[in-house]
């Protein structure tokens, strides 16, 4: 992009400028991004002299999609405002969904409680004390019917944060849509369905890695044929980051996971251009605004390259990295909780400047409890102000061309490829999980981050600087203890009213399906339609495939 003689001229000019001007001391010896990448005082064309506009940036909607996947981006359509929500029973969450839609939310995102995430029914011994606490309790299709009661599934898209039992919850969603008279071809949304990041960071696992992958590829295959508008996976870096990873680790590990899924699907015999357009991603937006924007831009560029060069994808859509973003929960402080609104604003801005397709903004009280109604409304309003008042959505990739941002985008990409090489040398993603490589890398980053705060190398407002002794009391959401009783009562009622024979038959068929290696999606749909519980289905999976236990290390 720059002529060599001009760069040389600039270098000389800079050197004499520095000699003349740089006499004063700076406020720190070293300046680093949040991820620890050292940054210089100022960036100039010298730092991006290799950058070629057409090859490295291109236009929005053109390869390598650094500047966005659509030619019009937010001038065409704003991102989807999708607040992650769920608590108590299906009734309470249905009410929260309607509240959010009424206040301008444009997509739904379901948070399930822990027993559902692990495939246990609410009356399981393991569910004690956890019912409806961190999400909504879903045991059977009955709960799912109540959850989406009065919500037209052909008009709204739904994202479901569910992993080990993702195919089963998806089966329930398909069944609810069909009960509403909507064909499975018409529904759209996302199941998270990303087990690799569960083993790496989020740690909600049920089956060992191999059968976990098998089930995921089943959803890819089924989705291509039967539910073409559905994103059958959301390959997630969010949790990797929350567990303590740096921005570079978040990106590298997530894209490496993505490659593993693509490889597995190709091994199954699927055509890359059939399933790749339905892969979606999920990233974290932390406090370092430029680093985050650079990360999103690098992500698109790297993925497009991988899909094209390594996996030989032909369709333009297969090269798109589409992603949801959530602001960084781990950055929220319990101290002076209201100031989390400001952190969230900066992080949400990073996501928008980075070209996200949908966004969840955290509520200010999340370091204390599940979000209250007031807190979640302010979080949604934050997105609306960015969308409608700040004007940042009027120009695509407005930071593109900044010497610093372009340098940082290149730097993050470079570091990412280094990690890919390392992962490959260790035998690939699954081998790395088994060896604890990712887990150790992340734990070390988390520990370093904590030490930096404690040594005051990093300032966190309200925690190690500008501390206030006075506690600010804020009202928080509490889960009524009655929730547990009501949920278990409903489950018992469903068990009593359903046909025992049909349930037993559905489970016997499922076992046969597992043993013959079939795609299990049709079996799951059959099971849920006769009100077989999530726990009953998962017990079969656990019995047939075995369970996973992580080696304890820190």
């Amino acid at each position, binding site marked *: 992009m720059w002529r060599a003689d001009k760069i040389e001229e600039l270098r000389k000019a800079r050197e004499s400028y520095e000699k003349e001007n740089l006499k004063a001391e700076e406020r720190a010896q070293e300046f680093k991004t949040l991820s620890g990448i050292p940054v210089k005082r100022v960036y100039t064309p010298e730092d991006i002299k290799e950058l070629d506009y057409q090859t490295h940036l291109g236009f929005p909607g053109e390869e390598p999609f650094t500047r966005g996947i659509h030619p019009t981006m937010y001038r065409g359509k704003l991102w989807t405002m999708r607040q992650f929500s769920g608590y108590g029973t299906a009734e309470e969450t249905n009410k929260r969904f309607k509240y959010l839609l009424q206040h301008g939310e444009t997509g739904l995102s379901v948070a399930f409680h*822990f*027993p559902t*995430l*692990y495939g*246990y029914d609410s009356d399981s011994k*393991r569910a*004690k*004390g*956890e019912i409806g*606490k*961190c999400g909504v309790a879903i045991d059977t299709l009955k709960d799912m019917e109540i959850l989406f009661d009065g919500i037209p599934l052909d008009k709204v898209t739904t994202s479901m944060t569910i992993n080990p039992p993702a195919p089963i919850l998806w089966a329930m969603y398909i069944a609810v849509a069909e009960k509403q008279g909507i064909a499975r071809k018409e529904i759209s949304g996302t199941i998270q369905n990303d087990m690799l990041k*569960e083993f790496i960071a*989020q*740690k*909600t*696992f049920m089956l060992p890695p191999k059968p976990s992958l098998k089930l995921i590829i089943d959803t890819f295959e089924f989705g291509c044929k039967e539910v073409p508008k559905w994103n059958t996976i959301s390959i997630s870096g969010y949790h990797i980051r*929350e*567990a*303590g990873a740096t921005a570079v680790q978040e990106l590298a590990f997530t894209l490496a996971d993505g490659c593993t899924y693509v490889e597995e699907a190709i091994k199954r015999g699927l055509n890359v251009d059939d399933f790749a357009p339905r892969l979606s991603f999920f990233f974290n937006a932390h406090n370092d605004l430029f680093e985050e924007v650079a990360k999103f831009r690098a992500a698109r560029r790297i993925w497009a390259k991988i899909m094209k060069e390594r996996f030989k994808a032909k369709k333009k859509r297969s090269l798109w990295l589409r992603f949801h973003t959530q602001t960084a929960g*781990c950055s929220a*402080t*319990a*101290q002076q909780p209201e100031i989390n609104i400001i952190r969230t604003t900066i992080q949400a801005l990073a996501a928008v400047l980075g070209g996200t397709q949908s966004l969840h903004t955290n509520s200010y009280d999340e*370091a*204390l*409890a*599940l979000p209250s109604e007031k807190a979640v409304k302010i979080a949604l309003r934050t997105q609306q102000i960015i969308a409608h008042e700040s004007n940042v959505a009027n120009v695509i990739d407005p930071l593109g061309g900044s010497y610093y941002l372009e340098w940082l985008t290149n730097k993050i990409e470079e570091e990412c490829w280094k990690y890919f090489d390392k992962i490959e040398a260790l035998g690939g993603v699954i081998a790395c999980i088994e060896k604890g490589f990712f887990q150790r890398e992340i*734990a070390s980053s*988390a*520990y370093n981050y*904590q030490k930096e705060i*404690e040594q005051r190398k990093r300032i*966190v407002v*309200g*925690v*190690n600087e500008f501390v206030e002794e006075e*506690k600010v*009391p804020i009202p*928080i959401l*509490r*889960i009524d203890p009655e929730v547990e009783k009501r949920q278990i009562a409903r489950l018992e009622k469903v068990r009593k009213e359903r046909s025992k024979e049909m349930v037993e038959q559905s489970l016997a068929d499922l076992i046969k399906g597992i043993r013959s290696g079939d795609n299990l999606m049709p079996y799951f749909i059959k099971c849920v339609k006769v009100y077989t519980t999530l726990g009953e289905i998962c017990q079969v999976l656990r019995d047939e495939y075995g369970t996973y*236990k*992580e*080696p*304890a*290390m*820190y």
Partner: protein
Amino acid sequence: MVEEGKKIRVLIAKLGLNGHDRGAKVVARALRDAGMEVIYTGLHQTPEQVVESALQEDVDVIGLSLLSGAHLTLFTKVMELLKKESLENIIVLAGGIIPEEDVTKLKEIGIAEIFGPGTDTKDIVEFIKKKLKKWK
């Protein structure tokens, strides 16, 4: 309580179903770096498993971590079981997302201290050392 020259033994346990182990692991490393012997149970522990490990490992301190909101149910169970096993001399600490109003309740059932988000790990180290010295 702790003999001269003997290292303080701490069990760090992730109770319940949530897998958010960042805090537990950071605390485990910090305690180890402060010279303690740390036994980390790993994830998804039941109260029974925690107490069993505490007994077998002969620990001075148990650190419980939980962020899913099930703390009242599960911590209470741990305290009951410790009492049943006559292990009340073990200092029990807790960390995670625990609302202010539950802190009093948890202290009433015998949890020595609750370390919430934003805690400096040095405070935990200091707390343990002070407690064990006083008991000696």
